[in-house]
């Protein structure tokens, strides 16, 4: 390396590093599949369409830049300890994909298995956790209700004192809970998809659809119109805006979800700590920053502003868990626009139009589903059959009063 450096320095014969994403080019006249939304979900779907089904004439359109929306705004937590069998099986598959994703993509997504606690502060929470643990174990997901002794062994810095407003009574322990570098997930999928021929068009805003009969035949954008075989939409936050162009009303509200990080600290926290009752969660990133967040804002908004009220409420609870953080400063704050559904489960699969597919309703829990969503939505688009694994997430379940009760495990359970 030093010799090569010297040689290149003296003679200037260096190779320009390869672009991760090919340079922008004009839109083609038509594509087999147009994917709206260049976040993790859309890019993963493009990757699996090309890799698993050989469908390479695919365009991913994003009105901003790739991975610039909720992919960059989530708090990067991955787990599979949901409540309903449908949810557990779905995230279990996602977890399996996560575990080998760096190798599969040959791109370091910094996947880090660190263990995940969901704290219980009430008897009712303990009961739900036992239920969750049993459902999880039955389906092969590691999950256990543990007491204070065991919590103290795994996470000795956590405040287990009874001298707080909501003392900790126990926890649901999920040893395979993990984190990953969220931007890298988008970049990795984008790079590998582009290598297989997928076109990624950033700064390309979809403004409408050409609908003939029961099909979308064209997509209108600020850079010209394109014909399309099929359309997949994965634009969390703006889901209702795009779906309205296709004449579809959804059970979704757009609500901001806020988060923040502290200044970097010496490593003290190995696990991910979540408290549903206190509406907060915290983990320490590889840079030493504490990543913290809570529940969504109390009312809908198409915006990503941060509020002091949220920080005050959040930090009051965080300080019950880790009182010694009282003097630590907060470094960054941000928000993302989350698609909230009434039953805290997503909206996925086929829609009212024959060639229009949707991946939406991801609320506050979409990041951890990125690989499985990409894989299963690619299957749905390629085969035109809704995979069994996501069939319960169909958009019109509400008109049949057939909701999925995932709120108990998803509301703040990032």
């Amino acid at each position, binding site marked *: 390396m030093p010799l090569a450096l010297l040689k290149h320095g003296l003679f200037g014969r260096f190779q320009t590093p390869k672009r991760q994403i090919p340079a922008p080019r004009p839109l083609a006249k038509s594509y087999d599949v147009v994917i709206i939304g260049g976040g993790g979900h859309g890019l993963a779907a493009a990757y699996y369409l090309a890799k698993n089904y050989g469908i390479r004439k695919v365009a991913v359109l994003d009105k901003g830049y790739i991975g610039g929306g909720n992919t960059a705004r989530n708090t990067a937590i991955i787990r599979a300890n949901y409540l309903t069998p449908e949810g557990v099986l779905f995230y279990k598959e996602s977890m399996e994909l996560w575990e080998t994703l760096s190798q599969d993509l040959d791109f370091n997504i910094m996947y880090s298995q660190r263990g995940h606690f969901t704290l219980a502060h009430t008897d009712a929470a303990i009961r739900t956790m036992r239920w969750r643990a049993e459902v999880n174990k039955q389906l092969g997901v590691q999950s256990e209700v543990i007491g204070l002794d065991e919590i103290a062994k795994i996470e000795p810095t956590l405040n287990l004192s009874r001298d707080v407003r909501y003392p900790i009574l126990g926890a649901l322990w999920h040893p395979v809970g993990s984190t990953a570098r969220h931007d890298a997930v988008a970049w990795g999928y984008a790079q590998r998809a582009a290598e297989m021929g997928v076109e990624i068009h950033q700064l390309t805003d979809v403004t409408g659809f050409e609908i003939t009969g029961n099909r979308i035949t064209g997509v209108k954008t600020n850079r010209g119109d394109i014909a399309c075989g099929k359309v997949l939409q994965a634009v969390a936050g703006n*889901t*209702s*805006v795009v779906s*309205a162009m296709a004449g579809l*009303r*959804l*059970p*979704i*509200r*757009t609500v901001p979800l806020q988060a923040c990080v502290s200044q970097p600290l010496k490593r003290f926290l190995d696990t991910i700590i979540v408290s549903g009752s206190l509406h907060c969660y915290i983990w320490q990133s590889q840079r030493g920053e504490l990543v913290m967040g809570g529940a969504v804002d*109390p*009312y*809908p*908004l*198409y*915006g990503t*502003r941060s*509020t*002091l*009220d949220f920080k005050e409420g959040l930090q009051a609870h965080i300080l019950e868990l880790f009182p010694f953080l009282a003097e630590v400063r907060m470094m960054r704050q941000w928000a993302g626009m989350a698609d909230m559904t*009434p039953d805290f489960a997503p909206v996925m699969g086929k829609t009212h139009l024959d060639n229009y597919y949707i991946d939406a309703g991801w609320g506050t829990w979409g990041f951890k589903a990125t690989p499985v969503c990409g894989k299963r939505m690619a299957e749905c688009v390629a085969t035109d059959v809704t995979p069994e694994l996501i069939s319960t997430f169909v958009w019109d379940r*509400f*008109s*049949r*009063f057939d909701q999925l009760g995932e709120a108990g495990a998803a509301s703040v359970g990032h």
Partner: protein
Amino acid sequence: MKIMNCPLNGPRNISEFAYGGDVRPIPADDAEPKAWADYLYMKSNQPGIAVEWWIHVPTSYWFMAERDLRTDEILATYPPKLPATGTAS
């Protein structure tokens, strides 16, 4: 803190209020289940000005508010106009 003007109690902190959903017409008693499902769950959810139900929690007073969903600006608040005939948003 953000301030909302309650038609009954005057300007108060936003934390004293709770959001109650869009103002929209209630289906007839004998409407089809599908109409009720649509009323309960389906949302237009467009970025624009919405007419919403809000409650001032300490006094349990329900009222209507017009709010811009793009900027979070509260444009007007007033006592409920019944029957609710706004458009879903």
